[in-house]
């Protein structure tokens, strides 16, 4: 069990609610998604909260070294973040504690990132007509 987890690009929070952490925060660029996530999580007894914000505002939303688990799903695509992978690494690195775990799940066809951490596990699996690349890193 992790102490605190951050779900980046949490959408409706379908993953956020079930993350193995005592305290969980989900962020998403869409206000509507955040509203929906809050509604859907209202019955859960766990400490889950949601905040609207984009990847590049993590710097203003959170203090440094705040999370020991970070999850990022379907965010790091050029159609969303242009040519700015390195800034994404910076922002996530800032909030992730040393020794923390990072999980990245993306459609392989559009994903051009690779975090500057040691990859400890990697999975590929089919997702709709695409293939998902799931990576687990340790900081």
């Amino acid at each position, binding site marked *: 069990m992790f102490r605190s987890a951050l779900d980046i690009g949490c959408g409706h929070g379908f993953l956020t609610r079930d993350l193995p952490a005592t305290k969980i925060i989900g962020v998403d660029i869409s206000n509507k998604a955040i509203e929906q996530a809050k509604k859907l999580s209202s019955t859960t007894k766990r400490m889950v909260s949601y905040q609207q914000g984009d990847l*590049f505002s993590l710097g203003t939303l959170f203090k440094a070294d705040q999370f020991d688990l970070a999850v990022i799903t379907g965010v790091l695509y050029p159609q969303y973040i242009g*040519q700015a992978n*390195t800034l994404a690494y910076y922002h996530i690195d800032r909030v992730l504690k040393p020794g923390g775990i990072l999980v990245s799940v993306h459609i392989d066809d559009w994903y051009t990132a*690779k975090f500057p*951490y040691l990859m400890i596990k990697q999975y590929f699996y089919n997702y709709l007509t695409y293939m998902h690349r799931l990576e687990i890193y340790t900081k």
Partner: protein
Amino acid sequence: MILMYHKVHPDSPSMWWVTVDQFYRQLSELQAKTVVYLDDYDLKNPDQVVITFDGVYDNVLYYAAPLLKKFGYPFELFITGDYVEKNNRFDVGEAPATFASIQQLTELVKLGGRLQWHTRSHPKLDQITDLGMIKKELSIPAKLKNLDPKGCKWLAYPHSVFNSETKKIAHQMFKGSLSVIHGSDDDLDALNRVTVLNDTSIRTSSIGVIIPSYNYGSFLVEAVESVLRQTVKPTKILIVDDASTDNTQEIGRAYARRYPELVQFHRNQINQGIIKTFNQSVNHINTNYVCFLGADNRFKSDYIEKCAIVLDQDPAVAIAYTDTEVNFIHGSSLYRKAAFDEAGGYIPSKKRAEDHGLFMRMIEMGWTAKRVPDLLLEYRQHSKSQANTVLNSFAELNFYKKEYYTAVTELSKIKSSKFWKLLYLYKEPKKALKHYLSLLLTKVVSKINHQIQRL
């Protein structure tokens, strides 16, 4: 050297926008220099660099400032007074952008930025004859001056232009002034700057990565991807197929096709063995820095960033080696081609590993090796572990999927071309007529239907 930026952003709609990833690379390269404020800039020191932004746009706060902070660099912000918080609609043809607000400028100062002056309204100063007007343009309103007590000492001429009169006034009012191309490198009242573009490089050394494969095709995709996804990309990637009998050739050629500027593919017709292949490849790629990546391994994505800077910083260092399970100089170290040449390359040996022999000879010749304190290689176990084989097959499968889609798109492009239609008509007139006539008829009928509906 004084660098001039305008906008830093994830996208680059014109030459004035440097993408975040290219900006990152440039900052990483600057680690071999000393980045200083203009106040500390020594014109005679070629190792000093000043980073300047003109505008100043709010994207500098969002996208540039966090990275400047990461690298711990000071920077100068040349503000045009009238533009604060406004947009760039006057800038015809440029993609929309907003100038930083007072609040944002304050934040930038907190992050290490220093406010300097770019006039009130950004006029061409050499065309103003009224000296009073010039003085007014060069005077800084108290509201802005108060934002940064350490700043407001330097001027950047709008459009890079000035004349002797403007220079005289600027000299009285400022510690120094900046131009871009109309000044010089030693005139404190008109210093030149380098306009930084996406492909501007501060590093003068080229970097090559060689990926040799002998029947490691199933691992190759992931090895190549780990180089393509580096935070700082190499200048060249050379995939060498030592006469493999597997799909190494197919994968190598496909990557060379996909990235013609970056990836080269070479196949040995006859198996040459490691030593010959290594020596040939280093001479073939001919970059200042060079390293090998075993086709069955992967680089961590900051391998090049961390290793190249070690060689940049000290010309006496020939080898930058990273941590592995044990501390030793291993085959995947980044080294200087000059030292390789001097040491006579790889020499076959029965006593010790040939890469070790090469590095020993370099050191005996007076070169040094420096450790990069980071685990930058991901060794992958294969053959023993079934799980890994499955993973690589998936990566391989996806590679072929991409190839397939590219081929399908190409084919449909060809089939919709006039040339194809004419060829079809010529070769099989009956079939073609039947095919195209029915298409044409459907089109005509739908047009008529459309017309009738409108009536």
